[in-house]
């Protein structure tokens, strides 16, 4: 399998220069995501006002897939409502866990389409969704760390 399909340029760029990669001082929600298998460990910070994500950031350590996914996530979710964030996660999750031979609705997924290559590498699905799971937990006000195990 050619890794070019996994390491799309957009993933390499976000890995090198992640967006919103910082602690959010006025966050009112935060949650940790931890993958004990590879040691990926992130905290996702949210500022949630009237059901709307007015600001979002993350920091921590992890592989290129998990870091780029977290970075793209923070870009896409700023300004979104809780429901919109959950819907976007559902679409993303559906894509990364779908059969690699099936076509993907590129338009609907936008930037997230870059992660379609993950479908070929089942162990990397956890990397791609780690920060998203932490984000969902933060939205729900759960403070216990999310692990992928």
């Amino acid at each position, binding site marked *: 399998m050619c*890794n070019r399909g996994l390491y799309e340029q957009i993933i390499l760029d976000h*890995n090198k220069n992640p967006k919103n990669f910082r602690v959010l001082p006025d966050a009112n929600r935060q949650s940790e995501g931890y993958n004990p298998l*590879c*040691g*990926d460990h992130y905290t996702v910070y949210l500022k949630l006002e009237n059901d709307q994500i007015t600001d979002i950031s993350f920091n921590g*350590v*992890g*592989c*290129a*897939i998990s870091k780029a996914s977290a970075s793209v996530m923070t870009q896409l979710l700023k300004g979104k409502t809780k429901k919109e964030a959950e819907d976007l996660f559902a679409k993303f999750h559906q894509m990364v866990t779908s059969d690699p031979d099936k076509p993907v609705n590129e338009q609907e997924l936008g930037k997230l389409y870059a992660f379609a290559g993950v479908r070929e590498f089942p162990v990397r699905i956890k990397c791609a969704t780690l920060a998203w799971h932490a984000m969902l937990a933060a939205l729900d006000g759960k403070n216990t760390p999310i692990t992928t195990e």
Partner: protein
Amino acid sequence: MTITLDRETIKQDRALTTEEVERLRNEFPILRTRPNGKPLIYFDNAATSQKPYRVLCAIDKYYKNQNANVHRGVHFLSEIATSAYECARKKVQRFLNANLSCEIVFTRGTTEGINLVSNSYGRKNVKAGDEILISYMEHHSNIVPWQMLCENTGAVLKVLPINREGELILDDLENLLSPRTKIVAITHVSNALGTINPIKRIIRAAHERGAVVLIDAAQSASHLPIDVQDLGCDFLVCSGHKMYGPTGIGVLYGRAELLDSMPPYQGGGDMILSVRFDKTTYNTLPHKFEAGTPHIAGAIGLGAAIEFLNSVGMKRIEAYERQLLDYATNILKNIDGVHIIGTAREKAGVLSFYMDCAHPHDIGQILDSLGIAVRAGHHCAQPVMEFFGVPATTRASFALFNTRDEIDALAAGILKVKEIFE
């Protein structure tokens, strides 16, 4: 004066030649697989070793021609199976140079061996306030069972520290050993760093304080010669699957006198002499510790793996793998942005490293696309990772069938990682 050369010793210490390694490679059918269309380069031997034909054939032969339960049948097959199983025990005895074959207990693996000792010897002999000494570089399997024992008994876990090279700080040993130290459990070779520990010295120091010593030989048994009588250890544990044998079988060596004094670990069939509701009499060694039908095929496979190791020669394996390690270390340490973790003077064929530009998971993925199998992660040694301040490392671990060409391919793969992520 004439100097007489001991020809046998010289021959034994000589590393394997390229031609010999090429011949040995033919014994491993898996080396013909082509992951991602590339020839397999297997550098994950510390996780599990590959299996030569003679091991696969021994297991196949057992199930096809010899399968029966052991120690309890009068029929033809049962006698053959029992004799093959007990013959495997003798092979292990000679391989480790144990005094008696009853000192060899078959387990599921290293982890079960440690749990057996901590549950049986530990619970009988360790009291509140006693101490158990392990080291900072232990695999989780040589940490957690002792923590559990401490929780159950009120004993205290002490940890021998390591330095930046990944060597035990032996100057601290004397201070950490006390008259209250009951058990010292130390790895022979670190799975995350490759360090070979001076276990003989540690065993002697522990014995002076009256403690018993368990050696975790999971990472050494197929790489270095082991002589339990020369070492003087009380217990030694290893896993068949890391020694070219099958999974699910391992060995606990224990001094007969100690094993004899220990209560059984599990109850069931085969570990008893007689069972009455008012009184059960336990079987003799080693059967007292082998409750239930054992992994007969596994033991026979392990016996075949030991024959394989003997046919190559442990000293020659050690010398060859040391050459591989030196070759790989020299190449990797000169690649900008690559940092080797574990730079002890005495090292076995384990090369753990991290890169400035890429996470171990991504390094492992790129190498995989080139047919190179390495391990990425914390290697079940989280305290070691924490000590060096990294979440994980990439680990290449060598076996007798690896070659310099394969190490060149690893170096090329690392350069490719740099090209993609830098």
